[in-house]
């Protein structure tokens, strides 16, 4: 079936040029970058070229500061647990927000078993963290602040630079989970003042299951995997060269085409939001009206439940997400939506739309029409909906 994909957050096609680069590795370059012979040399060269491209994307001063990982989750776990264990003698207090991704939340929960304590700051109705609240939460034994760059469920972009300044002034390490931002909007690690930044390749049309962690030179951190001396001794294990080369290539294009991509997404997003009232009533648009990902819309559709919306749209050949794909299969109301003040029922009926380069204005029109039908028929079934 020909599917119109409005779920680029979780299922991004790989750019054709990136595909070709990956296929070349599959077919011709099976070398191991650690080997001392020429097969290895070629791989080592490709590995460092990919590192340079990814570095350039986030304006990393030295490319060695990038560690390749198996995705956003590994990066986040590595950053948080790695710093926590390395700095344990300095303190065991960590600051985060109420709307982080489960990779952050559950890593911190894990650390509680090792007697770490966590302060989680609240957000306003747009899902925005207040830097002053973070500053107020800093204690003598605070070793790490972890605040996401943009939220995967509601798209809100946080004041990372302001928090970075506070972290620097108060000499606390600062990690940002930028999985949904890197390659999508400009992210500059130097400007933001982060010590650690997690990201993944699929949000910018690279392969899934590949990511990176920026670790500022000099940051005390333990590796996640112990073993060989790969990745400058920061991540043991034979490299996923196919994925890494793909990520490097995707990073080049993301840097080159970012403005164009943002303009295209914005145009579709604005069209959708402008025309939506003609099709639907009783919905809430989530997230900050301006400080938000340009390719991202989150809508809570009152009286109906999200998974059933996704399934019904899918029957019509349209792919959207309930919230984050990573949480599908977990049956709770979203902690993010509850944090911005939603009722339990509204938090269940949320749909996340993420636009991509191949989406057209016609796609959006078809989507609006189908969405209307879907919502009407599901509301008909719903005991909560009173006409």
């Amino acid at each position, binding site marked *: 079936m020909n599917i119109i994909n409005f779920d680029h957050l979780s299922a991004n096609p790989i750019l054709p040029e990136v595909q070709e680069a990956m296929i070349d590795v599959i077919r011709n370059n099976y070398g191991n970058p650690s080997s001392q012979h020429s097969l290895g040399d070629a791989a080592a060269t490709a590995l460092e070229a990919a590192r340079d491209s990814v570095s350039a994307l986030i304006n990393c001063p030295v490319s060695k500061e990038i560690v390749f990982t198996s995705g956003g989750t590994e990066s986040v776990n590595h950053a948080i647990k790695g710093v926590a264990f390395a700095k344990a003698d300095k303190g065991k207090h960590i600051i985060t927000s109420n709307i982080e991704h489960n990779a952050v939340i559950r890593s911190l929960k894990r650390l509680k078993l090792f007697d770490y304590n966590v302060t989680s700051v609240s957000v306003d109705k747009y899902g925005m963290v207040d830097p002053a609240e973070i500053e107020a939460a800093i204690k003598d034994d605070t070793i790490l602040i972890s605040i996401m760059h943009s939220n995967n469920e509601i798209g809100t972009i946080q004041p990372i630079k302001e928090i970075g300044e506070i972290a620097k002034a108060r000499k606390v390490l600062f990690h940002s989970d930028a999985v949904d931002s890197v390659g999508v909007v400009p992210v500059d690690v130097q400007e933001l003042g982060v010590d650690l930044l997690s990201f993944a390749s699929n949000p910018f049309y690279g392969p899934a299951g590949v990511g990176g962690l920026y670790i500022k030179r000099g940051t005390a951190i333990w590796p996640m995997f112990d073993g060989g001396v790969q990745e400058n001794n920061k991540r043991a294990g034979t490299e996923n060269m196919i994925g890494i080369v793909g990520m490097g290539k995707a990073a080049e294009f993301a840097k080159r085409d970012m403005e164009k991509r943002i303009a295209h997404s914005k145009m579709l997003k604005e069209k959708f939001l402008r025309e939506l009232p003609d099709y639907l009533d009783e919905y809430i648009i989530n997230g900050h009206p301006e400080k938000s990902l340009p390719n991202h819309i989150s809508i809570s559709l009152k009286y109906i439940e999200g998974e*059933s919306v996704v*399934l*019904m749209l899918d029957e019509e050949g349209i792919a959207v997400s309930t919230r984050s794909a990573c949480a599908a299969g977990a049956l*709770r109301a979203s902690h993010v939506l509850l944090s911005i003040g939603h009722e*339990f029922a509204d938090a*269940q009926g949320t749909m996340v739309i993420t636009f991509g380069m191949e989406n057209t204005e016609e796609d959006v029109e078809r989507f609006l029409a189908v969405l209307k039908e879907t919502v009407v028929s599901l509301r*008909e079934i719903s005991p909560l909906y009173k006409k």
Partner: protein
Amino acid sequence: MYSKTVMDHFKKPRNVGTIENADAIGEVGNPLCGDMMTIYLKIEDERITDIKFQTFGCGAAIAVSSMLTEMAKGKTIEEAKKITNKDVAEALEGLPKNKLHCSNLGADALQVAIKDYEDQKAGKPRQERQQAEKHEHAEKDVCYCPYCDSEVGEGEAFCKSCKNALVHL
């Protein structure tokens, strides 16, 4: 993810709606758990002559409701009482493990409706319809068994479904 039968009942749910002047009503769940269901019965001569439902929930919950109403329709009260969650899940050709609780919802609503009918017959006061209110469990963290994906309570040492030992976070 879902069987063909589940998708069929989800896409074309049978017996959707309400019954005016229903002889019995059963409502279970609440939106806090992610699902809520109401069953309306028309009963003649101890036999379910009409049945309708309304459901707020996932695809599985809607399919379960639809299948359940099909199964109950035309049955006597005594027969209907014997419909179990397992029967519904089986009729749907299985549900994913993490959706099994949705089938509980279905049979439960039917039993609540039947109880409503019997209470009325016995002249007992009708139970108030359950209100959608905050309830403890949904706010606390729910754990999932790492072996079988069933939900498990915060402090449990073993998973009730698969009997594996659990390590809680």
